[in-house]
Every structure is written in C-alpha cells, then in structure tokens.
C-alpha cells in the first residue's frame, strides 16, 4: 500500500461521497441541466481524474512534511545550536513547547511586511529570482522517496520505483538555485548584491564537480540512477562506510551548495551587508530564508538517501521516521560546523574546491571502481 | 640638573661639557645647538626624558630631518597648534624609542600669516595631523601633498578652534 494507493483510495471515496448527492441533484433539475450534472459526475469518478488528483494530494503531503521539518530545523538550529552560544534560544513565544512558535511568529511578521522593489531594479529579474529559487528547491523534493512505500508514485503496484532517474533529477533541480542568486544579485541594482551574485557563481564552479563525482561513485556502486535502487542496494551495508571519503566530500560540498557558514560567501554579512538578499524585504525575503533552510533539509535528505542507507534501520520504527532522523543528524552536523567556523574568502573556496575536494572525489571514485570490479557490490 | 638660565646658552655649554655628556637629554640639546645656533633659542629639560626646544619657523624642515636621521627620533607623536594672543604656536612632539626621549619642538608664527613647512615628507604620520591642524586652526602647511579639510565638510568656511569663532557656547 504505497502513498499513491492511499491517496487514490482517499480521493475515490471522496468523489463517491460527493457524487451520490450530485447525481440526485442532477435528476431533480430540468433535463438539459441534469445531463450536464451526470457528465460532470462521470468525469469526476473516471480513473484518470482520480489518479491526477491523487498525485496532487501526494505532492501536497510531501510538501507539508517538508515545511514542518523546515520549521523544526529552524527551531532546532536556534534552540539547541543556540546553546552553543550559551543562551536560551527562543523562549517566550510558545513558552510550553520550548519556543517552537517563534518561527511562526517570524513568518507572520514577514507576511505583514510590505514588499518593495527598488526603483532602478530590473523588474522582471527581481520578481523571477525568488520564483526560480523556491520553485527549484520544491521540485527537488518531489523526487526524494522517504520510505519504500512513501514516495511520489504514479501507479499502485508495490514494486514501482516512482520517478525513474530520481537522483539525477534531484541534483539537476538542486543546482538551479545559484543561477537565481546571480539573477537576484544582478537585478537589484546594488553593488553589494552584484558582488554577492558573482561570488555565488564563482562558488558554484568550485564545489559542483566534486559533489557530482561523489554522487557518480554512488551511482556506480548502486548500478542505477533511481533513489529506490540506491537505497535497496544499501540494504546490507550503507554506502557511507566504504565510501566514507565520499561522504565527507559530499557533506562539505553540501555546505557550499546550501551556503552555510564556512562557505557563506554570497550572503556575507560583514562585507556585503546582506549579500544578494539585501534589497528583498517582506515575504520575498521570508521565502529566501525559509528556502535556504529547506535546501538544508533537502541536502540532509540527499546525504541520507545516497550514503546513510535511506530508511534502512533496526526496523521497530516506520521507514520515513528513520529517514528523517538521519536527515536531522546530518543537518545538526552541518549546523555544528556552521556556528564554530568563520567565513572563507572567495579565492580560498576555489582553492579548497579544486585542490582539496576534487582529488578526494576522484580518489573516492577510484575506490568505488575498485569495489565494483572486485565484485563486492 | 639645574635648568639652564635665560643667559646666552652657548657659553654655558662649554663650561660643563665633559661631565654632562652621558645624559641623553643634554646630548640632544647640545647636538641641536651645534647645528642650529641662531635658530635654537629657549631650550630646557622639562622632566626625565622630555626636552623642549624653540626653533625658528624657516628651520623646521631641516631640524626635523636632522632630528630624525642623526639623533634617531623615529616617531612623530603629535603636531598641535595653539593660538595665543599675539602668535600661533605649532608644537611638534617627536619621540625616540631607542633612547626613550621625547622632544617638544615649538615654532611660533605671526598672527596674520600662520604658515609653516610641512614635515609629512619626513614622517608619513604627519600627513593627517597637519590636515587636521589646517582644518580646525587654519595653519597652512606649505608643500603638503593634499592639504584639505579632514574632519569638517569640505565647503566649511570657518576654522572652529580659533578664539574668535563663537559657534557654540
């Protein structure tokens, strides 16, 4: 019983419920009106329509789970990583649940703030940047399966693997964001944001290739591009153990991809005021901030799916819970490094990318090739 | 060390030359005296390690160069401009780290033409201090690389530290 089946059944039951009232209404009305009602009823209960609505519901569920996790990430970050700063973290808002409502309060505040576009800003670019940034991040969500039965699937048979090359598509969507940062930086007509945008482009060049090489080594071992097969291949041993070097490189590249502290160049407070988000305010800025944490969640999910054996765990917990626990652990690890390290310079990040991460990624690929030829996987 | 009287300093020095040679302050005074006999008028040893000397306006550049190169005063600490009733006084505090000495070089200029040679070519640190004296007190430092206002807006007309400037209370 995978997610699609569940949604299909739900929608089917709902349509039937509505239809029997709908048809009786159709009979009661004059003839030419009644035919219209029956046609609509037949269409609603047709397999195609219910399947489409089921997929929409699936995506909705996945997004809601992601958003709740993002709120949890923000709260976890400010509350317990805040203890690293020796202070309480959010305390008064939502007093009994440890200040969890603080994030909602911040969101509400950003909702009511006015959205201003700078006078000489390039309107289209200024408007499109958040759209691309947020859109591409949410798209990447759809391809990541949270459990054997819990993925965005299109048919009910248990053996289906959802989107075919889901890992490839996920990384493709994941890598669109730096372009939107460039557009945002360029279009807000401000020297600081321009430099912020340029830096994000420069930063992308340095970590994109090592990241994809490590992912390639995982594809090599798993023998397929889909998340399902990768996670199934990790049934007996997680890829993180043989490819430990790959795991480390992947996490470092992830920090660079998601612009977390050591590689926080595009949004460097000290030099560039607020980096590329300087000119955005109101809910646009809220979207940017929320999406940067969402990308942290997606990064954590990718790392668990590729290296930490997805939803494989001792079993007394359902699959998605295991998946989320591992994602949280990866996120906490990145946040821990985030708060205890200063920012790196632009040329240094290029050096790290080319001189440190790339050799490690290639070494990791060789290890993968060795393991593959030795036939262990 | 008894402070020098107002009598002519030249003959006073010859009498007590040998005994006093090791005291660093005296060595500075004697060296200054030898090189600028006419220019150096009133000089005395204020306290341990601080020497005051008055010098003519036109000898300032030569004196500073001499003091920095031969006497080893590496650090120009401060340039201050003081407005008295009949004259402006520009006081250079020059320090020597190696000999632990501070030389207070004072030049005075007539009230109507407060201009002195700039020493920013000798010490780089003097550049901004001279601009500040020009800005606040109106002392013109000739052949200064960029003599313009530093603290006040560029188009400000007055020199606020002058006594006749009654801006605030």
């Amino acid at each position, binding site marked *: 019983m995978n997610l699609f089946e569940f949604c299909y059944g739900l929608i089917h039951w709902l349509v039937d419920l509505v239809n029997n009232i709908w048809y009786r209404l159709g009979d009661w009305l004059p003839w030419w009106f009644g035919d219209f009602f029956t046609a609509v009823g037949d269409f609603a209960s047709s397999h195609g329509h219910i399947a489409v609505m089921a997929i929409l519901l699936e995506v909705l569920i996945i997004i809601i789970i992601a958003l709740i996790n993002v709120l949890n990430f923000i709260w976890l970050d400010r509350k317990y990583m805040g203890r*690293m700063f020796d202070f*309480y973290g959010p305390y008064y808002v939502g007093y009994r649940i440890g200040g969890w409502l603080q994030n909602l309060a911040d969101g509400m505040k950003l909702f009511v703030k006015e959205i201003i576009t700078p006078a000489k800003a390039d309107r289209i670019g200024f408007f499109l940047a958040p759209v691309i940034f947020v859109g591409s991040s949410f798209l990447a969500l759809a391809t990541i399966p949270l459990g054997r039965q819990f993925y965005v699937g299109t048919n009910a048979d248990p053996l289906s693997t959802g989107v075919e090359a889901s890992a490839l598509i996920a990384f493709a969507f994941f890598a669109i964001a730096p372009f939107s940062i460039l557009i945002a930086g360029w279009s807000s007509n401000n020297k600081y944001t321009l430099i912020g945008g340029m830096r994000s482009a420069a930063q992308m060049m340095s970590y994109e290739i090592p990241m994809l090489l490590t992912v390639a080594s995982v594809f090599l071992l798993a023998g397929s591009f889909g998340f399902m097969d990768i996670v199934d291949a990790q049934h007996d041993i997680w890829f993180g153990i043989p490819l430990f070097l790959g795991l480390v490189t992947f996490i470092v590249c992830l920090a660079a991809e998601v612009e977390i502290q050591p590689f926080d160049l595009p949004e460097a407070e000290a030099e560039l005021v607020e980096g590329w988000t300087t000119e955005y305010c109101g809910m646009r800025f809220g979207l940017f901030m929320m999406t940067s944490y969402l990308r942290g969640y997606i990064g954590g999910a990718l790392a668990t799916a590729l290296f930490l054996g997805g939803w494989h765990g001792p079993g007394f917990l359902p699959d998605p819970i295991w998946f989320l626990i591992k994602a949280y652990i990866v996120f906490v690890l990145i946040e*821990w490094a985030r708060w*205890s*390290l200063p920012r790196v310079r632009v040329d240094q990040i290029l*050096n790290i990318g080319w001189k440190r991460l790339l050799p490690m990624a290639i070494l990791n690929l060789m290890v993968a090739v060795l393991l593959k030829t030795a036939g262990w996987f | 060390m008894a402070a020098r009287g107002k009598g002519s300093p030249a003959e006073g020095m010859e009498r007590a030359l040998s005994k006093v040679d090791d005291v660093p302050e005296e060595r500075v005074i004697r060296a200054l005296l030898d090189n600028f006999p006419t220019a150096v008028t009133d000089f005395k040893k204020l306290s341990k390690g601080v020497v005051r000397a008055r010098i003519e306006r036109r000898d300032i550049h030569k004196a500073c160069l001499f003091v920095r190169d031969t006497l080893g005063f590496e650090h120009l600490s401060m340039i201050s401009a003081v407005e008295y009733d009949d004259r402006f006084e520009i006081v250079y505090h020059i320090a020597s780290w190696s000999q632990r000495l501070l030389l207070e070089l004072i030049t005075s200029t007539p009230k109507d033409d407060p201009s002195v040679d700039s020493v920013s070519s000798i010490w780089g640190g003097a550049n901004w201090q001279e601009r500040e004296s020009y800005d606040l007190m109106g002392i013109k430092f000739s052949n200064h690389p960029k003599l313009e206002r530093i603290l006040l807006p560029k188009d400000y007309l007055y020199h606020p530290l002058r006594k006749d400037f009654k801006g605030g209370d």
Partner: protein
Amino acid sequence: MAQKKKAKGSGGLIIRPMMRSGKQVVSSLFKGMPNTILYPYQILDLPPTYRGKHTLDFKRCIGCGNCVEICPNDCMWLEKLDDPELGKIERPGVDMGRCLFCGFCVEVCPTVALHHTVEFELADYRRDKLKYGPKDLRDDKFADKVKEERTKQRLPVLDMAKCTSCEKCAGACPEMVIAMMPVENVGRSKPEINLSKCTGCEKCVIACPEKALEMKDIYESYFEMPEPKFALKNCTGCGACARACPADAIYMMEMPGTEKVLKDGKKGKPKKRAVFVLEKCVGCGRCFRACKFEAIEMSGVRK
C-alpha cells in the same frame, strides 16, 4: 597560500573549534543554566555605587546650588518650595533627559544630601516627564542608610549673632586653634577657628557663656571652592548677601559711630557691614550674585 605558520594544533582543520562549541552545548544544556538573565523576570543586582536616579534629603540640603554650578550639562535647577515643617526653602531638581549621571553633583554637595540610587528604569513617553522636581527626588531616609565615603568630623561652628567677643573660647582651646581677629571698624573681634587643626574636643563650646559655638558634622570636601573676598568701602550694609547666604555665614554688624544725625536731632541707626564667618562658607557664590555694589568678588563664579 603560504600556511607556513602552523599555529599549535591548527592542523586539525576544524576539530578543535567544534570540540569547543560542542563542550559549550553540553555544559549549557545539561550542567549549568545558560548565561542569560531573563531581565523582566529576573532582577539585575547592581552594586551600591551604581549611579542611577538621584534622591535628595530635604533636611540635610541647604539649597546652596553647588550642584547646579558644577553640573556639566546644566540639567539641575533650584526651585522655591513652601514646605510645611521647613518653611520657605530652595531645593534642586534634575532633568533626567539631559543628565549625564556623572556623579559630580553628589561629590560636590557640602552636606551630602544628594545621592544616586540603584534605579535605572527611567524611560518615559514625554520629554518633560523626565524633569524630576525636588518633590519627586525627596527621600529623607536614604542619606542615613548610605555609608558615606567622605570623612565626617564634629567641629565647632560659630554663630556671630550670639557672640559677644568675650574671648573665653580662645583661652579654653588646648591647641590654641582659635584666634581673635578684630573686625574692621566694628570695634569688636571675632574668633576664627582653624578647622583643619581643631580636634573637636568641645572645650570651647563649654567655655562660651552665650552658647555661640555649636558642634556640627562637617564633611570633608574634595573640590577647592572659591572664597568670597569682601571690599568694605563698596559695602552699603543692605544685607542682601546675608539673606542670600544658604549657610548663613554672613552677619550684618552695626558699625558704631556712623549714625547720621536726623533733621529732628535724634541719632539714626548706625550703618551696617557684612562680616564673613569663612568656616561655614560652602563657596556657592550666591552672595557674590546677590551683591549689587561689587562689595564681594569671587574668582571664576558666573554672574
């Protein structure tokens, strides 16, 4: 990148800083409370020397205005009040909006009436609400609770009105500290006590038949206050300075032999002149301002 300078242990890349922050999370989460004081709910404990809102002890204060003089921001002013038990008095008020909280007024007060409390929540919605008049500052019991740093001595103080210059006190003083100084063309002499040498043995107070001498608490002052100098020839005996002096250190004494003969042959009242008891003077400059005939000069006091 020339990383030649390998500081001790920076080779561990990012291990040591993360260990440090990790230890902090553990200690703040499980062991001790985190470092923050939840301000509105937990009270900050401030040391007694904290310079917060002022308080004024109406009984000690003599309304001399020294604090108004020394305030760098001119935020104090003297207000005339009508107090039930103290009668017509002048007491200072403070404009907290301009106040610098520098503490000079507390240090210069001759009778240690003004103090700083520990209260710092002075915010308000309107600027004139920040002007605290003397009544808002009044707190007569605060001054006794505070351990005053300035040394207090009980010293004899002369009341010229009662003194008949009988010189008994000069004789009774063991340290010969009291000198009888003749007062110009008043024909009498006045005892001047050198307070720095006086040991406060009270022998002169007992010896004085008219109780003109009286023991009072005198606080040591840190500021050298200006001294009034009296020019007799300008003085017209109007008594404005005697009325203005808060420490009543000025007495109007008749000068015998200066009576004018009136038309109907009777003798008019003799002219008066001011006599200064400089031990009581707190250097507030009010006599200098009150005198219209330049009979008193004080250096450095604004007219």
